């Protein structure tokens, strides 16, 4: 798990993980936009309770306000090109308000991703910020009637394959299955899950999983972060 202690005591750890991903990205070729079915590498399964533990996360951007309107305004603003369609790679950089920010591949062994430690570890702000996170869910077959179920500290907005499916607002703590989408269909092959987490102050984290038609954790898919290639 990413914690302040292991980031501080083992500063090489995060860098090593990042280098591994970067190296693999270089071997696999440059990413393009758009997705195509291909032999996946670096595929992981969700944990036993269905939580997705692998994400690409962008270093935080300044943002203020946790009300419905403030969060919607913040997430709809274009901070960098193609921010709603980009499939980033570990180490990719964007410039936001004259500040260079980096995408990092993150793996957690918990049900949630601790964004506080993520930001703190990279020497970034943890309060009044917005985090973008992306992952790719690979399904062996079409999966209809499923729901995305998330929790976040604090507010967050979520998209599946480009469609906004969840928004939760206000100063809140991460609660499992706090926000749940309407029924949706995961395509056979890759599906992009994207989110924007907005934090006010204090701790910040998020969790996400899919639920099946019986509201049980969805299994039978894999998660990938890293390159796509044609």
């Amino acid at each position: 798990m990413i914690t302040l202690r292991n980031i501080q005591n083992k500063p090489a750890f995060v860098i090593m993980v990042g280098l591994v991903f970067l190296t693999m990205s270089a071997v696999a070729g440059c990413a393009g936009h758009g997705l195509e079915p291909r032999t996946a590498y670096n595929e992981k399964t969700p944990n036993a309770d269905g939580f997705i533990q692998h994400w690409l996360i962008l270093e935080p951007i300044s943002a203020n306000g946790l009300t419905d309107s403030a969060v919607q305004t913040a997430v709809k603003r274009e901070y960098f090109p193609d921010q709603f369609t980009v499939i980033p790679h570990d180490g990719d950089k964007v410039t936001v308000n004259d500040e260079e920010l980096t995408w990092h591949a993150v793996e957690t062994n918990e049900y949630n991703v601790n964004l506080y430690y993520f930001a703190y570890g990279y020497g970034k702000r943890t309060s009044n910020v917005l985090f973008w996170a992306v992952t790719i869910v690979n399904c062996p077959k079409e999966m209809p009637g499923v729901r995305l179920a998330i929790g976040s500290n604090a507010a967050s907005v979520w998209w599946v394959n480009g469609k906004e499916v969840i928004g939760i607002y206000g100063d809140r703590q991460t609660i499992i299955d706090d926000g749940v989408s309407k029924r949706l269909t995961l395509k056979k092959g890759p599906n992009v899950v994207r989110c924007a987490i907005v934090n006010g102050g204090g701790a910040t984290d998020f969790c996400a999983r899919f639920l099946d038609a019986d509201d049980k954790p969805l299994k039978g898919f894999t998660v990938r972060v890293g390159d796509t290639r044609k």
Partner: protein
Amino acid sequence: MNTIYYTQSFRFFRLIMFLMGFALIWASPALALDGQIQIHDPSTIMLCNGKYYTYGTGGSSLVSDDGWTWRRGVTPSRRGMAPDVIHVGDRYYMYISSNPGGQPHSQVIMISSKSLDLESHDYGWEDGGIVNSTDGVEFCNGIDPGLFLDPTDGKLWMTFGSYFGYIRVVELDPKTGKRSDDKFTNIAINCEASTVIYHEGWYYLLATHGSCCRGADSGYNIRVGRSKKLTGPYVDHTGLDMILGGGKLLIGSGGRVIGPGHFGLLDLGDGVQKFSCHFEADLDRGGSSVLDIRPLLWKDGWPIAGDNFKEGTYEIESVRTGTALELAVEGVPVGGRRSRGARRMFAGQGGVIPPQDVAEVSSNWPAGNIGIRMANYMCQAQQKWAVTPVTNAGGYLGSTYFKITIAGTDRVLAVGEDGELVAVPAFTGGHEQLWRLDQLTDGTWRIMPKFASTANESLVLSAIGSSFATLAKFDPTSDKQRWLFKTP
């Protein structure tokens, strides 16, 4: 007969007075605690030398002689955040938290005194030192201590923690109030203001979720999980561990108060439990943070927050007999008396039969005292009781006293000189006419006259047979002294 003629101006004046009176009743915080009750993060309420004490963030404190009317108390020797207090042996131990240098670096410091009463020669806080700290790096902001003395083995425990990281539990030495060892166990996450209570073989972790400190925009709510072991895991009613964010709602916002937090148990014995908390915003007090005390109920192994008694008109029904309290007068059927076998007996009388007019039927009642009995409830006027809070009559933990009158009349339920129940013609405010209503843990009510309450005598309304009620010593195992207030 003298006829009184009202001038038009008098009628207008009377209307204005009625509207003002109505506005005052509507605007007044009818059943909130009385007096000075502003406080934030109150400690568990302590009883010392017959007075109640609670302490809050910033060195604030409140004291009350009866648990209803509160006033400002004395600041203890240390100020800090969200203290909790526990009485162990002959000492009161207070644990106070702080974030020196900023969150999540934290400390909990202990002070103790033999008395909380400033007038007592035993009053005097002694410093007990730091009992816990977090280094600002570990995944815990160790504020908001909650103390628990395990009734099964006498061990003393402290929970602590806030939204950054885990809620932890550590063991303390009940002889000194200090740490027994360096061990801790993580038991919950994403909450604060935790404490543990014990009930029928289970440990319950109460903790506050949601956002604080935003007035009416505070999302604070108190949630609970339970475990067979003090060290957890604490699981809510859906099976979700509190270390994954679970928790069954105990109490949220409602009525004119928003954002409850910082649960503190008040076990009065005899099957009466209450709890204290604060509400982030009392809308009738400008949105200030206030103390409140509510009944604690239990259902299917889970605690439930009761509501303070709401004034209104009720049928008062014995759980034991199913019969209702009434004046011992001849009842008149609603809609008038009809002989058995009358025409259209089963088809009714046609049209809507209105509620009984109490003015009409009471004209046949005796003018003086009337006895009290119980009978099948028949929706008749002599069976409908108006229960009204009485101001300036003092109170008890969480409530003021009530008068109980036949709705629409001045006839008041009282205790007669012979110690039996009687309805007297008018309310005089005497202690024999005032009633304490405590909700028992199963949701039924115990009804006690004020003179018994103030004398700490356990004398309550009790059913005898199906048709008579008296006062008797409270037996928590019996249903004779349990009552329902039902909408008539």
